[in-house]
């Protein structure tokens, strides 16, 4: 669907509306918006002029980047429509600018617009920080946008991609004919709603800066990790394995705090685009699977992986992912206060015990960006409080990066160190 004309309107999909409600929840709690920062480490061949030219073309072709959200009436589906003029910011910073400090500042979501680029020179080359708003991009969408900017930089005369948005799903009448398909989600929702979910941030929602730690693993370590994981994953089931590692790191901190009872719940995003498929750049295309274990069930790594693997199998068999997509499609018309109420009732009011994703191979088909060879790349999304923490993984060219994200006041330095020890022990067998 092209949005390049003067008059346009694009309805939000079900997942966009879910994330709009979360964004709204976070803003009301003084937590900034729901944003992310993607890091690209490049060598010195990078050209600032190429980036500026490509971003300008990309921005001009995508008015949704400057779009404004509106509802035509209180029970209407929110829509993007024409907004302010201007293009995506590309900012060059002085040599010596603190990369982590700038990224932390960007993660607070206090910048204007839906997308921006910051470029910093470092000893080894250049770091590009791409800041994005989750209302428009999921992790795969961010990578597609980066790939499109890279394409325009490499081929300055190429026409920019315009079909970057799709109309979501069928009409309401058609959807209601599929009532039975929503049932698996509802069954799971009701089963988990009152299961005394605990999180490290806890209630109530509080403002607090977003902070993050990065744990990089080199190729040898990542390969060692893969071999160590093979008996648990059969070499292919990364989802329950990394979720189990994340769950064990959170359980270790809870136990250290003296929490002995409660459930750990995590909604894992499931990418809706076909594997290897391009799909639209904008519009979130994910569903969710809701995993939950009691603290008592979070035991040794193999037992935890096994328990999560069984839930993974049974939820996939019941088609819970499709049920959630249909449910949130119906919920697009919910006014913001009702949607916030739905969120507040999720997982005993904690939304989840933590956030977690393994977004897979980062930009697998891209070797250079605006003239600079890519050395590494990863995503750092902001998190709401509650739950107040998130642990995210991605891999570039055989090198794993983990990003631990937390809201100020949720984790102490000692607790972060404990989580790091648990993660490294699980992934690498280090004690």
């Amino acid at each position, binding site marked *: 669907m092209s949005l390049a004309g003067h008059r346009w309107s694009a309805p939000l999909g079900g997942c966009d509306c879910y994330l709009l409600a979360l964004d709204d929840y976070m803003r009301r709690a003084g937590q900034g918006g729901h944003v992310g920062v993607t890091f690209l480490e490049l060598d010195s061949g990078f050209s600032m002029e190429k980036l500026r030219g490509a971003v300008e073309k990309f921005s001009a072709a995508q008015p949704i980047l400057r779009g404004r959200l509106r509802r035509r009436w209180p029970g209407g589906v929110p829509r993007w429509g024409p907004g302010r003029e201007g293009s995506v910011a590309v900012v060059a910073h002085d040599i010596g600018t603190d990369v982590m400090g700038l990224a932390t500042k960007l993660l607070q979501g206090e910048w204007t617009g839906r997308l921006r680029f910051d470029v910093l020179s470092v000893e080894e080359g250049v770091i590009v920080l791409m800041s994005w708003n989750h209302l428009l991009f999921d992790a795969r969408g961010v990578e597609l946008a980066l790939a499109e900017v890279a394409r325009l930089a490499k081929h300055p005369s190429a026409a920019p991609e315009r079909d970057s948005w799709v109309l979501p799903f069928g009409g309401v009448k058609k959807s209601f004919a599929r009532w039975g398909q929503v049932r698996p989600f509802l069954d799971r929702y009701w089963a988990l709603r009152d299961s005394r979910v605990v999180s490290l941030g806890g209630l109530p929602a509080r403002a607090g800066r977003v902070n993050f730690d990065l744990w990089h693993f080199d190729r040898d370590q990542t390969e060692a990790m893969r071999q160590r994981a093979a008996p648990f994953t059969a070499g*292919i*089931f*990364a*989802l329950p394995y990394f979720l189990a590692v994340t769950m064990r790191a959170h359980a270790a901190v809870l136990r250290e705090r003296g929490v002995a009872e409660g459930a750990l719940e995590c909604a894992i995003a499931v990418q809706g685009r*076909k*594997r*290897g498929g391009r799909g639209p750049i904008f519009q979130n295309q994910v569903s969710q699977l809701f995993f939950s274990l009691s603290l008592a069930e979070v035991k040794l790594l193999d037992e935890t992986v096994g328990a999560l693997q069984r839930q*993974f199998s049974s939820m996939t*068999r019941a088609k819970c992912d499709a049920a959630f997509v249909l449910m949130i499609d119906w919920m697009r018309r919910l006014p913001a206060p009702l949607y916030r109420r739905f969120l507040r009732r999720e997982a005993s009011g904690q939304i989840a015990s933590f956030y977690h994703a393994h977004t897979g191979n980062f930009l697998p088909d891209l070797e250079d960006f605006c003239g600079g060879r890519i050395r590494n790349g990863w995503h750092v999304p902001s998190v709401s409080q509650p739950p107040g923490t998130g642990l995210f993984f991605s891999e570039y060219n055989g090198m794993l990066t983990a990003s631990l994200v937390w809201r100020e006041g949720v984790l102490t330095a000692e607790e972060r160190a404990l989580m790091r020890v648990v993660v490294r022990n699980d992934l690498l067998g280090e004690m």
Partner: protein
Amino acid sequence: MDNVIPADLEEQLLSLIREKLIETGETMTVETDLFASGLDSMGIMQLMILIEERFGVRIAEAEVTHQNFATAGDLSSLVRRTAGVA
């Protein structure tokens, strides 16, 4: 559910994978590396269920290995073996 293994199982598996799971600009054959084409945890789980629904063959967890799911050809061998069809 009785299993129904068609003679052209490889082709049917390939169609299933192309229609439901993997999108690739390149031609996909029974020898195409499914993992290199983007098959992930969720895709494998969905594929197991699609195979069960379409062909009535339930693949045991112990059989879910990288080798058995590497290509549509490998997968069809696994399905035939599990169904007891030579």
